[in-house]
């Protein structure tokens, strides 16, 4: 499944913005960058729907909006059902000649809370029904809008306000839910992971997700300086490191066939270039407590789960 479209830096500059400036995201907000990049892949008339969360809250406040194209937010846990309704309406209204006979794309945005946790039921249902829409998960690994609480997407050992680094429990005890694998297991036609540092890869995948017939799922890692506790200038660097240490490898699954994307494939071919997790963890305040003798072993656990999942991924991609 090759997209005809080749993105260049020029396109990025020249394609009109859809998420306009003036919104209230923090400086260095990874999700805002992620959404802007995704929207560079839009190919024509498009309807957006958005789950409650940081990006929904920062992009509107009555009577202002940052959205150039039709956009609707209704609640936190139902964005895939919202997309289902939009897609069904488009089909029938076109059939009845009540709207122009042209294709309209549907994109749903949700955070990790809206996806891994409270919204997984309607996401699963919408994908099972096969609606033609792209679901974009911007994963900042916690409930940021409500003040950095843990989600099913928060990584092991991270301190959040509901998995604080205590003197007994060192941050989140559980491991991150493998949400994208769960989506692949639905038998959906297109699932991919992406990172804002690899912008061309991200936009190309977004475009493929839009172009595919049926549901597509794009999982974008989206660092949040507020919640991850790092300097606002480091978002893009962190977006690179998380791929280089294979905590968040880049891949696509087309009709269930896993395939590594270029940056991760290069690491697979040259395993000695795979970075250890330390540097990445050390940059972020949410892991600060791990760099103490008492909790050091959690860093080993993070390395262990990273390696285990990476090996499993290589196997799925047919690389041994």
């Amino acid at each position, binding site marked *: 499944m090759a997209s005809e479209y080749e993105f260049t830096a020029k396109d990025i500059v020249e394609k009109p913005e859809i998420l306009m400036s003036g919104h209230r995201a923090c400086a260095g907000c990874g999700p805002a960058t992620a959404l802007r990049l995704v929207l560079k892949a839009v190919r024509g008339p498009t309807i957006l729907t958005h789950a409650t969360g940081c990006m929904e809250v920062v992009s509107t406040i*009555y009577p*202002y909006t940052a959205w150039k194209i039709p956009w609707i937010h209704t609640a936190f846990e139902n964005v895939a059902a919202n997309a289902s309704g939009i897609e*069904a*309406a488009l089909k*029938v209204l076109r059939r009845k000649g009540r709207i122009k006979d042209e294709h309209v794309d549907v994109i749903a945005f949700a955070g990790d809370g809206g996806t891994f946790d409270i919204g997984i039921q309607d996401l699963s249902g919408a994908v099972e029904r096969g609606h033609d829409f792209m679901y974009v998960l911007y994963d900042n690994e916690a409930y940021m809008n409500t003040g950095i609480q843990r989600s099913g997407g928060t990584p092991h050992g991270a301190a959040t306000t509901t998995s604080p680094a205590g003197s007994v429990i060192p941050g989140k005890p559980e491991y991150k839910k493998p949400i994208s694998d769960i989506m692949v297991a639905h038998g959906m036609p297109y699932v991919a992971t992406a990172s804002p540092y690899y912008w061309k890869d991200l936009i190309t995948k977004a475009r493929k997700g839009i172009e595919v017939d049926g549901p597509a799922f794009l999982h974008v890692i989206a660092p949040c300086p507020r919640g991850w506790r790092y300097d606002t200038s480091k978002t893009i660097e962190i977006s690179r490191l998380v791929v280089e240490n294979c905590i968040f490898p880049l891949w696509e699954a087309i009709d269930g066939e896993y395939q590594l994307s270029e940056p991760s494939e290069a690491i697979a071919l040259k395993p000695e270039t795979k970075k250890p997790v330390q540097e990445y963890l050390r940059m972020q305040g949410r892991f600060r407590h791990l760099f103490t003798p008492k909790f050091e072993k959690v860093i080993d656990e993070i390395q262990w789960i990273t390696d285990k999942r990476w090996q499993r991924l290589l196997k799925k991609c047919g690389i041994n």
Partner: protein
Amino acid sequence: MEIVKQKVLALNGDEAVAYAVKQSDVDVVSAYPITPQTIIVERFSEYVANGEVDTEFICVESEHSALSACLTASAMGARVFTATASAGLALMHEILYVTSGCRAPVVMAVVNRALSAPINIHCDHSDSMVERDCSWIQLYAENSQEVYDSIIQAFRIAENPEISLPVMVGLDGFSLSHTLENVQVLPDDVVRKFVGTRQFPFIKGHEGKMVPFKLDPENPLSMGPLDLYDYYFEHKRQQEEAMQKAPKVIQQVHEEYAQMSGRHYGNGLIERYNLEDAEIAAVCLGSTAGTVKTVVDELRAEGVKAGLLRIRTFRPLPVEEIIKALENVKAVAVMDRSLSFGGYGGAVFHEIRHILYDAHIHPYVVNYIYGLGGRDTPRNLIHKIYQDLQEILQTRRVEKPVKFIGLRE
């Protein structure tokens, strides 16, 4: 206008709903099965499977998603329908408010059923009464004929650009939903003409020009934004203003429909039964009104001046109409098929008693909680209520203003 020639079909209440929806040129139906609503979804699925409707049917994985999908489909400009009951309506609770807040004219049949626990599939009004404050228009039907007629009318009410609010039509579980009745149905083309195509309010869009209120790539709008203390309150008042405009629209639609069908349900808001000279009266909604009317006839035959006020439109509450209807009644028994735990009587009682406080007439107003969980309410129970009212008038005393009736003591 002349009364249209109509077919008579043997339909239960659920089938009457499905048939009305089939005729109303609905674009999107999204629903999830729950007893006693299932027949609606099943019949409609058959219409889709047999190509009898041009409707996208989204067979979702929950009621929360059913209403979420209806809401956005409606925001796209589609005519939309869903149906549920009991736990399903409770699961929709959050999205009920979002739907009315987004001013999406969704029409929903609520097949009234008790709420858990303990789990019970039979009729009472707990499910929809608890949702009376969510800015949905609420109509309650007495029989399956009225169910059919009300669903068709509901699309015209909801989609009126002055209103733009969702409408729920309540029908009693099993006593209506599963009971066969002769239902007169209008020809397809007549219904289609009556419901017409969907209308939209116009609002100021992003670029400052007036645009139809829907999601449309040519006229982009943002719907459901963050809206804090500086505008939220005005938006809520707008919703209430639309509610206050609804009685006129409900009456107009009801009258226009009556002209072609020959069927009236009072004035569309309330129905007065032998109230003109009544000294004692019951107030109720839903199918129980049928039994009460029989009892009123029996009492009238004995010379007792008994009457009934049936509330068809419970939201918005037709305040003036209710005052006028009860103005000369001396003792009123309000029947509630739901319970407001820890409150003073049921939801309908709260309304009626407090309306009459303003009216400078102070009849005795007592409350009967009846029929919870499908408990039968036969004629003798209704007779007991009217006897109580007569006793109150004789003794000029009310022993207990709020009573349970028809249960073990």
